């Protein structure tokens, strides 16, 4: 049986798709057969971040409507053969998604995939609730600012009450906190919430902190999941997160401000 992971946040623009792409690639690179599904029907983005936008033929809605088989719609990643992408439809809206249809797809994927990453759209409407409905684990992506934290809190409430596990009275979804776009220097200046502040409000297990990084935008623009940029801080942070999720014990990084040496003090940051 596959483990279904939903990447969710409530708020938009916090890094759900970046995280979905990085996590899926990270899991696949470690040898686990992984599928990543874009639930943002009508605002398809995952294919761009994954760099497979020119190979999209069929999509999620086609499969739900039995217009294509799952194998026809799945796009095999060119960099990692364990990774498959199921894109969203750009010409439809979220009402095209049905609980039965999504359930059927996830059940079929569960047969030969180890991990299924569901990239949730923003909001708490149909697309988002369906993306999380069948989940076993939830990665709650949060920016260190109050509105994102509140939206994440709202999403956690929905995870706890409206998922399949909640409705069937099974063990609840495992929730993990991913703090993205974190800038320790701005935290120090009091311009941003600290890791502790966010954890105090959300009381959630911290899976990792991803620093604010230029490499994320570069990766998105080039269609390469940032985790493949092993030199970048964000890429390393995502690699840590994947390792921690798989049970490795890695110390948290990127929470404290980097101590600048004399050289960088003199010549500015890199």
């Amino acid at each position, binding site marked *: 049986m596959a483990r279904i992971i939903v990447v969710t946040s409530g708020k938009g623009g916090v890094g759900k798709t970046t995280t979905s792409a990085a996590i899926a690639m990270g899991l696949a690179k470690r040898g686990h057969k992984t599928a990543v599904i874009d639930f943002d029907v009508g605002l398809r983005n995952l294919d761009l971040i994954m760099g497979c936008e020119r190979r999209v033929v069929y999509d999620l809605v086609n499969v739900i409507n039995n217009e294509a088989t799952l194998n026809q719609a799945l796009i095999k990643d060119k960099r990692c053969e364990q990774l498959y992408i199921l894109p969203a439809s750009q010409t439809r809206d979220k009402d095209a998604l049905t609980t039965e249809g999504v359930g059927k797809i996830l059940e079929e994927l569960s047969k030969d995939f180890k991990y299924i990453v569901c990239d949730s759209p923003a909001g708490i409407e149909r697309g988002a609730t369906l993306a999380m409905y069948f989940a076993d684990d939830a990665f709650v992506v949060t920016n260190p600012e109050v509105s994102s934290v*509140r*939206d994440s*809190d*709202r999403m*956690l*409430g*929905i995870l*706890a*009450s409206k998922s399949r596990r909640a409705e069937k009275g099974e063990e609840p979804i495992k929730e993990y906190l991913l703090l993205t776009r974190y800038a320790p220097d701005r935290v120090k200046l009091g311009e941003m919430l600290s890791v502790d502040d966010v954890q*105090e*409000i959300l*009381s959630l297990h911290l899976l990792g902190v991803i620093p604010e990084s230029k490499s994320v935008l570069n990766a998105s623009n080039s269609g390469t999941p940032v985790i493949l940029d092993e030199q970048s801080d964000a890429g390393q942070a995502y690699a840590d997160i994947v390792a921690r999720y798989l049970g490795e014990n890695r110390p948290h990084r990127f929470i404290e401000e980097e101590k600048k040496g004399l050289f960088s003090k003199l010549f500015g940051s890199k």
Partner: protein
Amino acid sequence: MSTGAPITQKTALEFKSTSLTVPVLLLAGNDMILIDQQLQEKVAQAPEFFKNSPLLIDLQKLNTQNLELDFAEIVALVRKHGFMPIGIRGGNQKQTDDALAMNLPHYSLHGANAPLTANKPAAKTLPPPVVDEPKQQSQIVENKLVTQPVRSGQRVYAKGDLIVTATVSAGAEIMAEGNIHIYGSLRGRALAGVLGDASARIFCSDLQAELISIAGIYQLSEDLSKYPAHKPLQISLDNQTLIIKEF
């Protein structure tokens, strides 16, 4: 006799009308053994109540089923159980004649419904306390315990007391008809005594609430900011004013 009768004499008596509540025995069958048995059971429930009690025997139901009845026998039977029959109602001609022969008058069926209902409470006066007690108990027991964080957008309602052992997030709402206890941070709204119980209280270990209310009297976070966070507090209602005190 006539209205012209001498009235110089002192009046020795007077006729007045009164209505009494009298137990009525509604007979639905003519099986004497069964009637005997069931009468015994009823009397056993409240022996003092039925002892020497007047009794009206209602035969209407019996007669609609055209069942034969030995009237003398039934009178003997109710007397055996300590009743004092005072008459019959709804009897046919023969039963009425039998009754008259035993000096038992016949009452008309007018207002037959009133004694019928009157009979019921009379028979139930003893059992009620037993029926009422478990009801009251079940109302008291409906307290609620929440061990998971109450997230933004969630609402929790308790018919009794509400105990939360985790945080209540901003944008969450917890309500109780009784008291509220919060052992985490209270950042959302807490409303105690929502049905108007002014004696309800809110206890919390860290007050950062958006709103607190007892029996409809509320304060907003603006007014609450002067109270220390991370300190156990109790909130009660005194004379339409919320009193917030440290322990």
